[in-house]
């Protein structure tokens, strides 16, 4: 009796651990399959260039205000932090160098990624999810149009193209935010600040920034579209899909950011 009792609880413990682990692997597998399927279909016609432009406008242009605001405030705050922190060991002069490196390598891509994920992944999941629950996706298939090519591929490509551009803009604005604060509040010399920024920045930094941006862009659209297509069960389902899309995109961005950083410096 007691033996089966112990065995039973052991099984229960393993089941409790195993289920989410297996479930986790299964969803990673499904998302990967979804990504491969989309890419494979996107490589063959029909293509939808107008849909791509529409999405570039939505993801790129419409995200500019929020991206610019995030960058300028973060750049300025960063300069002040480095100045105050650096003054503890007489390293105030490192402000321009650290602002540019931190902004370009890390904060630019990650902050833009997270902001755009909040804006765009959720919108994609809500739109595609609503289309799913109102049978518009099924209708599209019966009208002989592939939803992967018509809906998913334009979003995926637009996001991968838009994010590097947004990140470049955010980097410049962020550095400019740091510059403004350093000149007007911390008493830096404008020309030597810019000179230092310029001499520190290397091609590799920009490369890393762009690679991260493109990867984040891919994950933003992937998470939004996947959650949207998986939507089940009316308005509540669309709500869940939207949440899943944003949380999924955040996790993927932060995780891949670490992986890319460690790979580059490993």
């Amino acid at each position, binding site marked *: 009796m007691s033996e089966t009792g112990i065995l039973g609880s052991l099984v229960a413990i393993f089941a409790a651990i195993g289920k989410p682990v297996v479930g986790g692997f299964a969803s990673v597998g499904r998302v990967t399959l979804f990504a491969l399927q989309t890419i494979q279909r996107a490589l063959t016609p029909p293509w*939808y260039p107008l849909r791509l432009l529409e999405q570039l406008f939505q993801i790129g242009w419409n995200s500019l205000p929020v991206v610019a605001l995030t960058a300028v405030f973060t750049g300025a705050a960063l300069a002040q932090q480095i100045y105050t922190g650096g003054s503890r060991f007489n390293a105030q002069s490192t402000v321009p160098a650290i602002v540019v490196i931190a902004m370009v390598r890390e904060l630019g891509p990650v902050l833009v990624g997270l902001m755009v994920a909040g804006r765009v992944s959720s919108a994609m999941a809500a739109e595609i999810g609503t289309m799913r629950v*109102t049978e518009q996706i099924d209708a*599209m298939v*019966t009208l*002989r*149009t592939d939803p992967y090519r*018509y809906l998913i591929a334009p979003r995926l490509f637009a996001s991968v193209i838009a994010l590097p551009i947004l990140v470049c803009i955010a980097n410049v604005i962020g550095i400019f935010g740091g510059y403004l604060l350093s000149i007007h509040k911390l008493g830096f010399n404008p020309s030597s600040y810019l000179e230092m920024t310029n001499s520190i920045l290397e091609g590799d930094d920009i490369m890393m920034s762009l690679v991260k941006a493109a990867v984040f862009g891919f994950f933003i659209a992937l998470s939004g579209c996947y959650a949207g297509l998986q939507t089940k069960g009316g308005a509540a389902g669309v709500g869940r899909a939207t949440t899943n899309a944003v949380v999924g995109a955040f996790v993927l961005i932060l995780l891949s950011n670490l992986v890319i950083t460690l790979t580059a410096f490993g």
Partner: protein
Amino acid sequence: MSDHPKIELQGVSKSFGSNHVLRDVSFSVEPGESMTIIGGSGCGKSVMLKCILGLMDVDAGKIFVDGEEITGMKAADHDRVRAKFGMLFQGGALFDSLPIWRNITFALTQGRHKRSSDMRATALENLERVGLGKEVLDLRPSELSGGMQKRVALARAIAPRPEIIFFDEPTTGLDPIRTDVINKLIVELVKDLGITALTITHDMGSVEKISDRVAMLFEGRIIWSGPVSELRHSGDVHVDQFVQGRAEGPIS
């Protein structure tokens, strides 16, 4: 090809987990025939349509269209067969981001923006067939009433001139007059365009107006099928209960 039924299901089964939605369903629809499947809500009617359309895979059994097996078909071939189908979705399923005329011509352009003036003319021609005019061409689906949305959805389904058309609860949610309008349209379209129709509904009024033949689906099985004239004296207790709309009987 003409000696084959237009659509044939052989022993089709489909389940979701432990929920057996379709169990060994077999029937066929002849060319030019209007067949209606009746059954209570959630008895698997919609799932059956989705299986025929290839939107879902079956677990077992075979589905033939014009004698050609479509179960397990490659995507490219499936797309070719799908060109024969039109579908009227229960909620209309119009694309709310597109104007009415782009909705109607969606299958012809496959979502691309081309030949606008031709496409507008085509859209208008199909709109007129369902009793609507050019004033709705540039509206969005959300600006139309439910009955008009259904008619636009019907125009969209017939625009590519399908050989087979599926009607998923075509009259649900409409008032009695709009219901009759839709019923008449379905009968006209089937006659005028020579379309084979497969309808699923639980509206007994429209069953008797639009069908040549009726089958009843209950607990995932076809329990009765026959000409519409025999529907009221089928001799089956389940069918009787359903047709007469009684709460008491074998179906609970």
